[in-house]
């Protein structure tokens, strides 16, 4: 790359003229700015979604169930339609969260091409969906986004006629508190958030400690651990470590506590912050990680040849008092193929398909045909990972990650931003 050419022959205007000219230019600019502003305002995207209805969002919780209003702008699809062969279904999901054979068999059966785009975390996903330029059909959120999605009119109500396989799903999901009458959502997977480790890399039995969460602040494991790159999940772990049950706290003292302990964790143990534990732990990149139950189950397939799955361990509170959640499937309003989206949802709820998907992604589907007590016997889990099973009663006693009110959400995100900026 040669040094760029300036113009050695450029004439320079005499200085007096420069003064007058630039003054004129400044005056023109000052006059033009408001006009430009009006022009740009005219070009703006037709108002941000939901800016008109800026009432405080309804926040569902187990003690405050919500029945969402049906969208008027994006009504449910009519009954009796079939997906067009040759059309495309655009799915928006985490990476490696849908079995490729499952996708291929759906494609073969209905002649629809499935196109999977991935996101790293829900904040990113919501931003891209809200930007409106994308035309996605199906989205896999967790229930802390439902309020925002419905409030901003981004989702389409489901037509239950298409989703007959709902009968195979655990009864508690037929009328969940976050979406009474399952107007917008069906459950996808259930999971717990606990601690996974490799017995051959960590000599202590993390599960046997009095407070296993302390391990993440233990200098003995410095440089050898990872935590989840998900703000609410990681920050809640700090609260649970301190015996605080309300992992959706809006108290400033709790938020300050999270801040101080997170920064301490950075200093003491320098964790990696990622969501790829299902690959890194079996690869030996680190020995200890905060993990989702499905990831540790999935990890057995990523172990190198010759390493037994029995080295993988998982801990979750025996009494079920830990983070427990489920992911959902929703049909986005912006999509152009909602019929295929309905068929896909119904397809995923079929017991045989759900089992196959479970085998691939490691996350347990809430299917009646899959008996949680029999998962080890049925070969889904090695004995050492028995604690990665998600039992239905966890949902009665466990703690859920709920949507936070805007001010608290902002405060939590600011702590997260500081954490990610490093010390």
């Amino acid at each position, binding site marked *: *790359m*040669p*040094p*760029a*050419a*300036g*113009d050695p*022959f*450029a*004439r320079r*205007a005499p200085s007096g003229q420069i003064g007058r000219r630039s003054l004129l230019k400044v005056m023109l600019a000052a006059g033009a700015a408001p006009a430009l502003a009006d022009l*740009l305002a005219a*070009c*703006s*995207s*037709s108002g941000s979604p939901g800016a008109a209805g800026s009432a405080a969002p309804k926040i569902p919780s187990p003690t405050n169930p919500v029945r969402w209003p049906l969208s008027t702008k994006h009504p449910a699809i009519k009954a009796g339609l079939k997906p067009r062969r040759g059309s495309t279904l*655009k799915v*928006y999901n985490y*990476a*490696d969260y849908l079995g*490729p*054979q499952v996708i*291929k068999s759906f494609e073969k059966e209905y002649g629809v*091409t499935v*196109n*999977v*785009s*991935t996101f790293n975390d829900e904040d990113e996903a919501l931003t891209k969906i809200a*930007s*409106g*330029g*994308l*035309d*996605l059909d199906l989205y896999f959120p967790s229930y802390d986004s439902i309020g925002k999605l419905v409030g901003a009119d981004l989702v389409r109500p489901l037509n239950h006629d298409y989703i007959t396989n709902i009968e195979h799903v655990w009864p508690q999901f037929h009328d969940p508190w976050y979406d009474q009458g399952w107007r917008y959502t069906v459950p996808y997977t259930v999971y717990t958030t606990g601690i996974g480790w490799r017995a051959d890399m960590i000599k202590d039995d993390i599960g046997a400690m009095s407070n296993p969460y302390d391990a993440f602040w233990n200098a003995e494991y410095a440089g050898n651990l990872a935590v989840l790159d998900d703000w609410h999940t990681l920050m809640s772990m700090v609260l649970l470590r301190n015996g605080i049950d309300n992992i959706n706290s809006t108290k400033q003292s709790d938020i300050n506590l999270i801040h101080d302990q997170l920064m301490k964790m950075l200093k003491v143990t320098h964790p990696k912050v*990622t969501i*790829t534990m*299902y*690959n890194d732990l079996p690869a030996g990149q680190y020995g200890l990680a905060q993990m989702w139950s499905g990831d540790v189950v999935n990890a057995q397939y*990523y172990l*190198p*040849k010759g390493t037994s799955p029995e080295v993988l361990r998982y801990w979750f509170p025996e009494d079920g008092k830990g983070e427990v959640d489920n992911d959902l499937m929703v049909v986005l309003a912006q999509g152009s193929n909602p019929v295929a989206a309905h068929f896909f949802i119904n397809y995923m709820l079929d017991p045989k398909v759900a089992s196959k998907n479970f085998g691939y992604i490691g996350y347990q589907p809430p299917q009646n045909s899959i008996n949680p007590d029999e998962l080890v016997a049925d070969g889904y889990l090695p004995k050492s990972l028995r604690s990665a099973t998600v039992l239905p009663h966890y949902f009665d006693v466990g703690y859920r990650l709920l949507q936070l009110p805007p001010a608290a959400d902002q405060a939590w995100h600011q702590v997260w931003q500081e954490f990610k900026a490093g010390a």
Partner: protein
Amino acid sequence: MTAVPGAALVPARRRRGPGAWARDPWRKPRILLGITVLYVGWSLLPVLIAVLFSFNDGKSRTVWQGFSMRWYYGDPLRSVWHDPTLHSAVVHTLWLGVLATLITIPLGVAMALGLDRWRGRIPAGANFIVLITFVLPEILLAVALLFVATVLQTPLHLGTAGQVMGLVTYQLSYPVVIVRSRLLTIGKHYEEAAIDLGASPMGAVRRVLLKMLLPAIFASTVLVFADVIDDFVIVRYLSGGSSTEPVSVKIYNTARAAPTPALNALATVLLASSLLVVLLGFVAYRRFTRGERRSIDVFAGEA
């Protein structure tokens, strides 16, 4: 070039101490040679190893488990041929390369010609902006264009259109800079001779100047194409879902998740395609400029 000019005067095989050897200004530059060789090795060996592992029989990218083509077309689910996300990435990357280059080069060459001859403050300002985009950190432009795509209703949408527009903006400085420096060396004589002989200004440009600029135009075409195929930040911010994610974004996403040798295979396929394009262009270039210029130097920006 300078071989070792004084060598003939130094008697061969004379024993000298290491001190004298170090001080001799005419000795062969073995240290420099060593550094250069080490650099080339360090620069290219990791890539060769990555290409090698794309032919690995197992899922590992660190342990060799035998030779196979399974990640290219063998594996029915994960190979580049069968996995739609992977091979669509290659197609999209090459398509972006062609589109962006086709727009950038004519725009840039015309701009170079115009800026070189046009006097005044507007061209000086334009020149300034071009130089800024040459060294600008890419993320600044990417974020700015992302804002434009998401808050304004313009032809700049997320997806291929937005990506091409962003790429052209970022790459425009390449042909401008390269062609302008070549123009400076050429000077005005040939054009003026042509005009004196009766050609119109446009004709002089077309029949004389452009032919002389061909090496520089060719060099900038190749560089722009290579840079566009390789681009990451702009195409990632302006992508509209997985069908508009080029290979660089796929590698980034998958490398941080669960990479298999299919990723190495994908990168190798792209490498082979871009080498092919460059080779074809190079052959075409040699045909156009038989024996005129020392070819390779042009790529380094030699005027």
